[in-house]
């Protein structure tokens, strides 16, 4: 479903050239839960941004749902992102000016989904992640866990092919972190593909495979043998 080959990302400023990713070969299979681990600055976020079509690689090959991303333009990448990718961030990134319901609804608006269907899908997902009772509240009135669950709902609402989660538990205490991890596991069990960047080996254990990244290169890949295909 996602495949990279010799994927390279180089950041250039006027004086310095930094290689963030070096010759990364990676495949994400349909329905898989993949965790990416590594110390700060190893390129975790960079690879997630590239997989999420927010950033473009400097070289190598990258296929997303059989589209050659290195040849795609901004408009095509926006369309792919809009329809097939859901994001979950460490700091939730809910829009303060929008209520929980409206935040979750937003991706559907950009997809021009009719109002009735939007309401039905949003309410269904809010129920699923357990924040239905806060649907008309604004993000700042919710706990961190609730905010992140709302963010997960927003990521899921377009029925994306893959969810990319960047340290989804990073800003949460243990209890709320567990809740969110449990939610992601459940979603994966139901067939959602997930790629998650994390610091925590504890949470990485929920994944089918763990990719260990160091200085922009893959050190090794652990397979927990739980992938069912």
């Amino acid at each position, binding site marked *: 479903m996602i495949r990279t080959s010799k994927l390279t990302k180089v950041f250039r400023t006027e004086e310095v050239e930094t290689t963030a990713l070096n010759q990364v070969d990676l495949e994400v299979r349909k329905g898989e839960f993949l965790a990416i681990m590594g110390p700060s600055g190893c390129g975790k976020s960079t690879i997630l941004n590239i997989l999420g079509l927010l950033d473009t690689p400097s070289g190598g090959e990258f296929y997303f749902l059989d589209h050659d991303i290195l040849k795609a333009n901004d408009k095509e990448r926006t369309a792919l992102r809009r329809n097939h990718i859901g994001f979950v961030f460490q700091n939730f990134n809910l829009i*303060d000016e929008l209520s929980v319901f409206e935040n979750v609804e937003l991706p559907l608006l950009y997809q021009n989904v009719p109002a009735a269907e939007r309401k039905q899908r949003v309410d269904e997902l809010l129920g699923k992640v357990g924040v239905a009772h806060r649907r008309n509240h604004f993000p700042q009135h919710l706990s961190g866990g609730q905010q992140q669950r709302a963010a997960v709902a927003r990521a899921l609402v377009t029925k994306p092919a893959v969810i990319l989660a960047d340290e989804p538990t990073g800003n949460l205490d243990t209890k709320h972190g567990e809740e969110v991890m449990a939610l992601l596991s459940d979603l994966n069990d139901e067939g959602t593909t997930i790629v998650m960047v994390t610091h925590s080996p504890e949470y990485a254990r929920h994944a089918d495979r763990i990719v260990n990244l160091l200085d922009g290169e893959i050190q090794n890949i652990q397979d927990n043998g739980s992938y069912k295909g």
Partner: protein
Amino acid sequence: MIKNYLKVAIRNLVKYKVFSFINVLGLATGVAVCLLVMLYVSDELSWDRHFSDSENIYRVGLHGRLGEQELIDPITPPPMAAALIAEIPGVVSATRLQNPGFPVLRYEEKVFSEEGFAWADSNFFNVFQLQLLRGDPKTVLRHPNHLVITESVAKRYFGDDDPIGKVLNADRRADYTVAGVLADIPRNTHFSSMNIFLSTSGRQGRGEDMWVNNNVMTYVRVQDGITKADLEAQMPQLVEKYVAPQVERFMGMDFQQFLNNGGLWSYYIEPVTDIHLKAQGSMKIEPGGDYTWLVLFSVVGVFLLMIAIINFINMSTARSLYRAREVGLRKTIGASRGQLITQFLTESVLTAIMAVIVGVLMAQLALPALREFTGKPLQIPYLTAGWFMPELLLAAIIIGILAGIYPALVMANFDPVKVLKGSFHRSRSSIVLRKALVIFQFSVSIVLLIGTLVVRGQLSYVMHKELGFNKNGILVVEKTDDLQTQASTFKEQIRQLPGVVGVTGNQNIMAVQQHENITPYNVQGEDANQQNLVWQKIVDHDFADVYQLKMKAGRWFSRDFPTDSGAIILNEAAVRSFGLDDPTTAVLTHPRGPNQEPQQLPVIGVVKDFHFETLHEPIKPLVFVMWDGPYIGRYQSIRYNTNNFPALLASVTTKWKEFSNNQAFEHFNYDESFDNLYQADIQTRTLFSVFALLAVFVASLGLYGLAAFNAVQRTREIGIRKALGASSGNIVVLLGKEIMNLVITSALVATPIAWYLMREWLAGFAYRIQLSPTPFLYSAFAAIMIALLTVSYQSMKAAMGDPVRALKYE
């Protein structure tokens, strides 16, 4: 989708209250000013356009030069109109209007001195198609002594009675019959003060064939396609055919010689629609507008709106950092650039709509003041003009897009990876742009401040300059000509009243009412072709005493010298103009005396130069001539030296009632009327002050908003500086320095612009102040102080902040 945009827009407006308030208030101020300026301008531009076929009506004027003096005025000789019809192709008709003064009209007990009295040719209402309520426009002015009056005049004399056929007596001499009634002439007509038109039929024979007498206004109506240039091209042949022979006959000059000596005799043409704003010459039926200032203040109005739009642009780009995360996120979940731009434009358009609503309210509130100020019954045409409401909406959308497009583009271009990571910093280019925009705002403000100071300085100079005579302590009684033979008795009895020092009868009131006559003279014995145009004033024995003129040489007219009625007195300018070494022994020749023969007039005295016109005009050569009739004057000027003015006025009023036969008592204080001559300049001063105030206000609003965002953005920098030992004072200086630099740059930009504009304005005064650095320095200093005060609150707040908290920020 649009619903979502609106929802977010409204929530953002509510959330950032200060920001929204500044934007709406600033834009609203700009909108209000633009709207008011537009009302004023469109009114000024509407003059004389209500006549059908107005673009085919022109007025003829005279442009002449004799000696050093030049004359440009819309006056023409009586035979001009007939010659135009007969000899110029494309002229459909030509008609004449003449304002011979103001007769006193009587109907039974009703007596009024009529200022709007004019003689008009029988085809006047064919050229100017005014609405005739009674009478046939083709015939109504055909018969001698027939009158057409306006509805208001009819009401004044006859109430509800039928005015047709009623007889009005003029000056106890002639009877005029009302033959037609005209709807009141629209206010925006260059002769709207005319309200009584007397047929010129039967007046032929009084110099009807004199081409060297310029005393009527001539208007022509031409066929479609005939232009001003076409007409002007035909005028020299009229001069050659008619004027040249008469110059030789009546003025004793050879016309070719006259031209060779640098003389000029030509006619110019002006479209009737230009008369109000661009008329040449100073002679006007009523005061016109000033096209240059109209353009200038339209520009200033637009600049004010631009300043407000710049506030919006500046604060939106400054604030964009706050919204970076939102933008990044929206992009991440699939918003396209177009969708983001649409969203931000929705917000700016919404702000602009609110601003337009508030602006219209503000304009409505300011309207009474504007009406008072301009003397125009201006209205905001909410529903009377169908285009107005849609136009307002369109204006709001355009303003919204102008204000919103740059910030929208900036924000839509944010890189989501960077903004979501938080490693996002303001770009250099947007900071440079923001500074440039602030400089623009303050440059405009400073130009207006300088303008205010210079205009104030010049007006104060004008008001206090020594005039060469004493304008204070003179009471003028108007329209005394109807007293006729009793005028001398009236004058003498006023003279006897307690508190009265002197009385003089006048044909016109110096500078205030009408201009002096212009007439040619030459020095006796010199070449008759060397004539000089001079200004001529007809006076009585008491004029110099009442107005307190100072003699330079010789003496004033005296009752002890009966021969004085054939003598003249000059001012210093006239002495210079004629090149007289010993003026009191000189004799001047007037080419056309009472018997059409040259007349010799000895000079008996010279008065020191004094300002008989406003300080806009240089002191021109002036000749005083004695009035030798039994009585003089439409006015009596009374010099008094009493502190009890009300008692004086009461005793003069009582005297008036004894003599006047029911005519109303009209009077004014000379000094007030004299100061009123600067009304247009005083209006300029007010406009400058108001615009300067508004520009500074709106620019400061923007600066305040900008400072608020700036302080927040630099919180971390300030925290680090404080951690490294900077004092709060250091920080305030740091933040203030940036503003100082911007305002000083603005002052540098503003100085040459203001210098140029003010030099142009001052050039309109023959007597003026020198442009000194003072107003420039004061304005720059004021702008700097205002700017510093504006940002000081934010700077202090940032400087006093807790560095630990500041460092944790982000």
